[in-house]
């Protein structure tokens, strides 16, 4: 590698680091994404083979035609996916792209591995036989194949779950045991291949390992409920990063090592941060099969108090006499596509000098930060969105709290009920406001499948109906008053 190329590569690494850094602040986030993309373009131009020769200056072969076609096909798929997806379906899209990356990582490693394989003619039959591969190359290749295929299969399942297909956790007795067993077999094959990556048996063992890794990806994600998919996607995202880094080791590409490792480590931290926001250890998410037994789902003694319905014009009256209104949006709001109506209501109240804020639970929606994206789509300025920790101490001074399509994230059971499966999860303390209005379609339980005590509190009123229709009625009533 010439020293000029090496210097440019350092610049590319810096662009990736700065990109991720900028992505973690709202003011610079968009620039961060573009900075990282710029790093990618530069890396693409100076892409060189392991021997240091720039790949674009080689003689043009049929393979290069295939490369160009492949890039264009991928570009079309990516652009169609990215620009046609609805904002509510964003998490699935990320899962899908991540799965594709994992699949690519696995294929690259497999190809490198099998490149060492040669057809050996034996009397009567042809056999694929592997030439000797040194362990320093075998280990990263096996790792990338394993983690890449796991990430591919797992992401596809996560995608399907978020699309609403078999959303419920699938469990059977001894599942963790079976998964553990498969993992042991995979690791055993890896260990054996590391020291015996030669001959016919190695090719067979490699293919078996590849298939088992795909199967393990499916088996790992299937038992996890739809509500936990964000954590799973984040984890698989960091897995893909590590697989890419391992590929970088295997084919000797430093840019891939740096980028993959950055994603792997930041993704791991992000996964832990998400779990922290839900107050659940990551092991619980992966092996707990949330919402499928374990712990009592409903309060043993039943819920005290009655549900008190309210009409839209009464709510409008309450709102117009309030000084401070807090809106707690949940996924139900997004499903009803009500974010624009919410913004309209908030603008209308703002015109009357009423202070309106949005209380955002870290895991509101289907993914941490998902709610911010949805509200941003409806032009709600982000300085009006207040995070849970910041707004909770001020909840006593809120006149009206509008809970729109949110359930578990405002359930006081998380604070009061030791036996509840969500006990200990930080919540938005909507029950401490002077009046809490809960907008909901029915009395059905939320994602965690548990009863919500908030609905029965003395200062709570229920506004039943479709969130969008109710909000439009509210806007009309506020305008009229």
């Amino acid at each position, binding site marked *: 590698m010439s020293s000029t190329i090496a210097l440019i590569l350092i610049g590319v690494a810096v662009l990736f680091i700065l*990109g*991720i850094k900028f992505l973690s602040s709202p003011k610079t986030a968009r620039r961060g994404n573009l900075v990282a993309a710029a790093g990618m373009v530069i890396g*693409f131009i100076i892409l060189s083979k392991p021997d240091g020769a720039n790949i674009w200056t080689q003689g043009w072969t049929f*393979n290069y035609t295939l490369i160009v076609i492949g890039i264009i096909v991928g570009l079309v798929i990516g652009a169609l996916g*990215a620009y046609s997806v609805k904002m509510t379906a964003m998490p699935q899209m990320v899962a899908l*792209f991540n799965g594709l990356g994992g699949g690519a990582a696995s294929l690259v490693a497999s190809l490198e591995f099998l490149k060492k394989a040669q057809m050996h003619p034996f009397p009567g039959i042809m056999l694929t036989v592997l030439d000797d591969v040194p362990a320093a190359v075998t280990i990263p290749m096996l790792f990338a194949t394993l983690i890449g295929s796991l990430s591919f299969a797992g992401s596809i399942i996560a995608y399907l779950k978020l699309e609403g297909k078999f959303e419920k956790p699938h469990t059977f007795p001894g599942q963790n045991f079976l998964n553990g067993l498969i993992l042991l077999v995979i690791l055993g094959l890896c260990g054996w291949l590391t020291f015996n990556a030669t001959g016919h048996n190695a090719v067979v063992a490699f293919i078996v390992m590849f298939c088992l890794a795909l199967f393990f990806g499916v088996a790992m994600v299937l038992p996890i409920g739809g509500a936990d998919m964000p954590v799973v996607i984040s984890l698989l995202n960091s897995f893909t990063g590590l697989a890419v880094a391992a590929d970088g080791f295997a084919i000797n590409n430093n840019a891939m090592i740096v980028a993959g490792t950055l994603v792997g*480590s930041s993704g791991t931290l992000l996964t832990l941060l998400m779990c922290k926001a839900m107050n659940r250890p990551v092991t619980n998410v992966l092996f707990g099969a949330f919402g499928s037994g374990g712990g009592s789902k409903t309060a043993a003694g039943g819920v005290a108090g009655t549900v008190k319905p309210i009409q839209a014009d009464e709510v409008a009256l309450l709102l117009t006499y309030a000084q401070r209104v807090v809106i707690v949006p949940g996924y139900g709001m997004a499903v009803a596509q009500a974010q624009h109506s919410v913004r309209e209501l908030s603008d209308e109240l703002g015109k009357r000098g009423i202070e309106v804020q949005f209380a955002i639970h870290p895991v509101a929606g289907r993914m941490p930060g998902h709610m911010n994206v949805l509200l941003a789509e409806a032009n709600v300025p982000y300085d009006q969105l207040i995070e849970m920790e910041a707004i909770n101490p001020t909840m006593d001074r809120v006149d009206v709290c509008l809970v729109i399509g949110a359930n578990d994230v405002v359930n006081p059971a998380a604070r009061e009920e030791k036996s509840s499966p969500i006990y200990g999860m930080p919540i938005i303390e909507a029950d401490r406001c002077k009046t809490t209005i809960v907008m909901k379609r029915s009395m059905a339980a939320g994602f965690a499948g548990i009863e919500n005590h908030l609905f029965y509190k003395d200062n709570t009123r229920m506004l039943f109906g479709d969130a969008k229709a109710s909000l439009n009625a509210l806007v009309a009533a506020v305008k009229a008053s």
Partner: protein
Amino acid sequence: MDTNILFIFVLSIFVGFEVISKVPSMLHTPLMSGTNAIHGIILFGGILVLADADGTLARTLGFVAVVFGSANVFGGFMVTDRMLQMFKKKK
């Protein structure tokens, strides 16, 4: 193996941890999506193996790897940008 590579690897781990340690939860989704795009660098790996591919099987698999990698990198950056262009302050 070149030990310099391991050196880079270990430092990158710590940099990855450091840069996002103070990210607000509102940016978790875009950050995940953005890092997702960055590991689309696997496209480079796909290009490198396809460039040297020999035989139909290797070409087919390499081609699939390039398509997947390309969709990952382009789709990833585009979808992240689409999310982030919505984060605006009040006009």
